[in-house]
């Protein structure tokens, strides 16, 4: 390893350590979510100060010299200058480092001590990939194996005594030419589908949706690092549910009442139609303020127990607190599914609660 590579690795370690130590802050603030460009995420870091010598002006004395005798205190409390005015110099700039989403996921996993996910059952889709593994005597010129062709030509010329050492010219003929050939190889490919459900009824405010957005980003990042292919689908609901795109999911607001069962019904239909659990690792994550109307709670629990849970790796329910407090739905689920291993429940009181909530969701390693 070259020295510059060692230095670069060391720098990466410092950056990772810095991000890990401040992970709660980065998770809580949603600022980096808007900075994902392709596969890279920019993270603003405070400047890392490297120690350096500073030279004083020439002939201005050395260390420890100046007015006063040995033992004289340098300053007493209460003495000294008055508090200064606000400065007019530019502030310290932040260093922005770019990380891939996989690096970010690794830091998240280390920071939260998340167990790696074992894809369940078969849960594999066989994907065929071509790999150049063999050699043939026919093929297109673009796939001609230069080295093998000339070796074969050299062998033929030596064997037929037409090779001249003083004039080492090797001319391949048609029979010498060798071409690369490929074979289709079946690779197992673990796929996951993430179905996000969000209550967008009148009682869900923009602050609560921001919490959902931040949490979903981190869950997405982690699950994408665990599977080869992740498909994300979004459902919003008030009294009725519908599938939407990502932008609508985070920005829509309806004034309807809250009937959570409508969203569970739609998610269940989606799983049955497009993501059979034998081929897919299914994740259903639902966020609401828990103010479900009427007798709907009972229907939700039966839908979960009979339909969604048997098909899912994990069902996560995050209850975000509204100005009116937290609804009863969380407690209903807690009572119904206390010991069920593929259910993760989390109460998110504010942005500071996101960190622990992610751990509650992903800490099950499912």
């Amino acid at each position, binding site marked *: 390893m070259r020295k510059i590579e060692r230095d670069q690795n060391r720098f990466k370690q410092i950056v990772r350590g810095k991000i890990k130590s401040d992970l709660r802050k980065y998770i809580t603030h949603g600022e980096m979510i808007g900075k994902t460009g392709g596969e890279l995420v920019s993270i603003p870091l405070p400047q890392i100060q490297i120690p350096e010598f500073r030279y004083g002006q020439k002939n201005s004395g050395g260390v420890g010299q100046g007015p006063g005798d040995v033992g004289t205190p340098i300053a007493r409390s209460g003495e000294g200058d008055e508090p200064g005015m606000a400065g007019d110099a530019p502030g310290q700039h932040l260093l922005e480092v770019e990380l891939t989403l996989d690096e970010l996921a690794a830091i998240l996993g280390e920071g939260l001590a998340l167990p790696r996910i074992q894809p369940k059952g078969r849960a594999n889709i066989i994907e065929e990939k071509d790999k150049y593994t063999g050699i043939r005597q026919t093929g297109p010129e673009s796939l001609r194996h230069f080295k093998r062709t000339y070796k074969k030509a050299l062998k033929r010329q030596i064997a037929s005594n037409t090779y001249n050492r003083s004039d080492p010219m090797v001319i391949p003929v048609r029979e010498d030419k060798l071409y690369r050939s490929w074979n289709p190889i079946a690779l197992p490919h673990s796929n996951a589908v993430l179905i996000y459900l969000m209550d967008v009824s009148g009682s869900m405010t923009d602050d609560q949706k921001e919490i959902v957005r931040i949490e979903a980003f981190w869950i997405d990042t982690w699950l994408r690092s665990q599977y080869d292919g992740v498909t994300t689908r979004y459902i919003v609901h008030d009294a009725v549910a519908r599938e939407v795109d990502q932008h609508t999911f985070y920005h829509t607001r309806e004034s309807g009442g*809250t009937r959570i069962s409508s969203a569970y019904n739609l998610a269940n239909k989606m799983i049955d139609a497009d993501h059979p659990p034998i081929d897919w690792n299914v994740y259903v994550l639902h966020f609401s303020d828990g103010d479900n109307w009427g007798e709907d709670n009972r229907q939700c629990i039966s839908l979960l127990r009979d339909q969604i849970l048997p098909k899912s790796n994990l069902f996560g329910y995050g209850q975000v607190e509204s100005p009116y407090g937290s609804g009863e739905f969380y407690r209903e689920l807690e009572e119904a599914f206390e010991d069920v291993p593929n259910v993760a429940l989390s109460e998110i009181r504010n942005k500071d609660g996101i960190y622990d909530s992610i751990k509650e969701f992903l800490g099950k390693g499912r």
Partner: protein
Amino acid sequence: MSLLSRKLSAEVDANRGPGTLSVADGPHQITLKLIAASPVGVSFDVLDFVATDKPHWSADALKAWGDRLTARLTYLMEPLVVLEIDAVGGEVELRSQSPSVRDTLRTYYEMHLRREGTLQLRRVAFDTATRQRFVVTCHLTREALDRLADDLVASVA
């Protein structure tokens, strides 16, 4: 002052609580789960109002009723807003625009309008310490209660 509010006032004078009292005037009826009453104010858990002359309200009509109520009921602890409209279930929910916060309690009014022409008003508290939500006693001056009864009648007219 409507006849209903006068009847209600007389009933409160006669029954200082606790108990349930009910008064009606034509198609309108008010039922109060009274905790206590004095010449100055009343405390109650739930107030129910029924307008029997309109048996089936559409979602739009319920929403309009909610809007009229938010415009009229400006003298309660907090102004009300129409929060959710359940067209499927035929129900509209109004709540205080911003709950009042005192110590660990967040308290707010909650009003439900249903398609049968019923209205229910109560005050709810959420305790951030115990994470529990519960109904608390609603306190109104006698004057505010009279005005509330008048406004409920006027809002369905």
